[in-house]
């Protein structure tokens, strides 16, 4: 096959060429985000998440809908207040609740790309205005210079400068996602949360957007949190993969390790559910039945969140919450973190 980079270990995409993964850029410590429903009930959307993201890394975050992955991404950027816990960026503790001055300060370093390119662009603004807005608000750049930057970014994301005067409805889904990317990138952030950036797009266009993100990452030395539910795509894109279930991390480690040798029973279930685009492999697959659905995140009690669906559930799983602990993968000899009593 053309362009095959053969069996190189580690991140294949842009990742490999994109400079060395460096120091810790962002860290969460026991981060929680609850939503209060009424006096007695709270949604535990993000519950005690501890992880680190290093510079130049793509961390993939997978989980089913309702697992809290989008809430986690938004909480990192201050779009949600933190219920408890901390987010550290380059060692500095970020405010628990952002005020407008905080947004002013951090919007230039941290940005977000949204899932739905239809609802995330203001239909009354032209593409040029949408892309320019970040610069206009967060820098002292002169209007003429802003216009030049917008043209430059339109080209950078594969559109043309003439597109600046058009409105969102005049673009296809893939083109809109490029506008969303240009809007995020124009302020030259260090860290970008990509929240399901390709889920709404057709297969052939998904690859266009993924390759664009890889190019930008390589060229600008970005660090990305890539949130998605498509396991194959996350494995393909990311250096490390984190698996979230019902607000908590189940497992986090190098993408290939987690994908090919999942340790947490939930990760094993996810991988087993993930259809392989090859009928020969699919026919050889063991028909391991998959049970249950993700339960309600309201007032989650103690114990492992996955206990109700876990085929290997033990007594202690029902009352003791497993901690995220290091476990060595004997094949790759790399340590990852798993929250499961089977490895405790």
């Amino acid at each position: 096959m053309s362009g095959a980079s053969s069996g190189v270990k580690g991140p294949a995409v842009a990742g490999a060429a994109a400079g060395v993964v460096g120091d810790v850029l962002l860290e969460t410590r026991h981060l929680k985000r609850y939503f209060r429903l009424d006096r007695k009930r709270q949604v535990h959307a993000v519950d005690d998440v501890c992880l680190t993201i290093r510079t130049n890394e793509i961390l993939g975050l997978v989980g089913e809908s309702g697992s809290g992955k989008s809430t986690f991404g938004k909480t990192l950027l201050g779009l949600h207040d933190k219920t408890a816990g901390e987010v550290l960026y380059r060692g500095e503790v970020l405010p628990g609740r952002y005020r407008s001055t905080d947004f002013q300060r951090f919007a230039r370093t941290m940005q977000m790309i949204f899932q739905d390119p239809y609802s995330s662009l203001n239909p009354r603004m032209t593409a040029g205005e949408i892309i320019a807005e970040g610069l206009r608000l967060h820098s002292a750049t002169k209007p003429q210079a802003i216009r030049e930057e917008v043209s430059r970014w339109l080209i950078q994301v594969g559109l043309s400068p003439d597109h600046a005067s058009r409105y969102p409805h005049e673009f296809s889904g893939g083109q809109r996602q490029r506008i969303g990317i240009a809007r995020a990138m124009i302020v030259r952030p260090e860290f970008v949360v990509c929240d399901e950036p390709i889920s709404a797009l057709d297969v052939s266009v998904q690859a266009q957007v993924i390759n664009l993100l890889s190019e930008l990452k390589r060229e600008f030395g970005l660090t990305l949190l890539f949130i998605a539910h498509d396991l194959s795509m996350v494995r393909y894109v990311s250096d490390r993969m984190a698996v979230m279930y019902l607000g908590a991390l189940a497992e986090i480690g190098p993408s290939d390790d987690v994908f090919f040798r999942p340790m947490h029973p939930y990760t094993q279930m996810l991988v087993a559910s993930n259809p392989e685009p090859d009928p020969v492999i699919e026919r050889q697959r063991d028909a391991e039945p998959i049970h249950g659905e993700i339960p309600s995140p309201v007032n989650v009690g103690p114990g492992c969140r996955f206990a109700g669906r876990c085929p290997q559930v033990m007594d202690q799983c029902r009352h003791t919450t497993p901690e995220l602990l290091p476990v060595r993968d004997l094949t790759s000899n790399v340590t990852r973190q798993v929250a499961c009593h089977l490895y405790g």
Partner: protein
Amino acid sequence: MRQKHDHDQDYALTVDNLKVEFDTYGGTVHAVRDVSFGLRRGKTLAIVGESGCGKSVTVQALMGLIPMPPGRITRGSAKLRSAASEATELIGLRERELNRIRGNRIGMIFQDPMTSLNPTMRIGDQIVETLRVHRGMSIREGFREAERLLDRVRISEARERARQYPFEFSGGMLQRVMIAVALACSPEVLIADEPTTALDVTIQAQILDLMQALQREEGMSIILITHDLGVVARMADDVAVMYAGQIVESGSAEAIFHRGGHPYTLGLRRATPSNDPENRQRLEPIEGSPPDLFHPPVGCGYFARCPHAMQVCEGRMPDPFELHHAADTADDVLHSARCWLQHDQAPRTEGVNQNGAGRGAS
């Protein structure tokens, strides 16, 4: 799909030269342009393609679900074939005749179960309604049957669940209800239009398993519409790849995935990440976008995006070429592609027609 030894009775449904157009203010959209295929009895045919390629319109035309106007079926025939009786022509049937077929002989499930069910009616009542209309049951009989159906689609505590409203069900559970409704009259053909697209991957696996189990038990033939190649690989016996309103390639799932003969099929494969641990090649997107179906190209619809486009492609769309492989001998399904590269005199092109082999060797 066509077999090499073609007998009408081997098919549950055959479609020939179907053309569907829509009149809009902007002009006429040629949504389905001359589509022909056969659904083999007891098998699953996946129709694959990207949004706007005409895959949903094709099956809606079969079901008489195209609003006319603005829609128009300008040509073609679709025959529902049962082993026992004569074939029934579906195109041009009157509403009353269609109602005898829809739900009875052809069941359908859609992408979004939430919008397919009435939010103000209990789940059980909605199933009973179907049973009363199609099977003439009394309310009491209907409820007993509804419980049995919910049980069949593996919904536990069926009696209690039947008294609940759609909002009390998860997306996966609602899709099970939709399948239960579709199964109510033991249809010969089940049409599933993106049945798992809105669902999470573990729930998707459950629904696909359920569909396969029910197909084994009932001997249904299934048309599965999807854009997800993983779902196709898991479910399909046969595959038809659609692009710009036409079927550009069709054959057995193995042939399509491993010996694809149309550049669009190959392009789709290369744009999808493979899960091979030894192989993490860069994704190759298909640049550009599909043609405007207001003014469909006279030649091949894929011409503008095709890396191997030749002069002839712009001017004329070829009829399907039959592809032959040594590996296909055991396989009864015809593999064909509408691409000039499959012509005897076409230049040898790596990966497309070299040695008659597709991507299989990767």
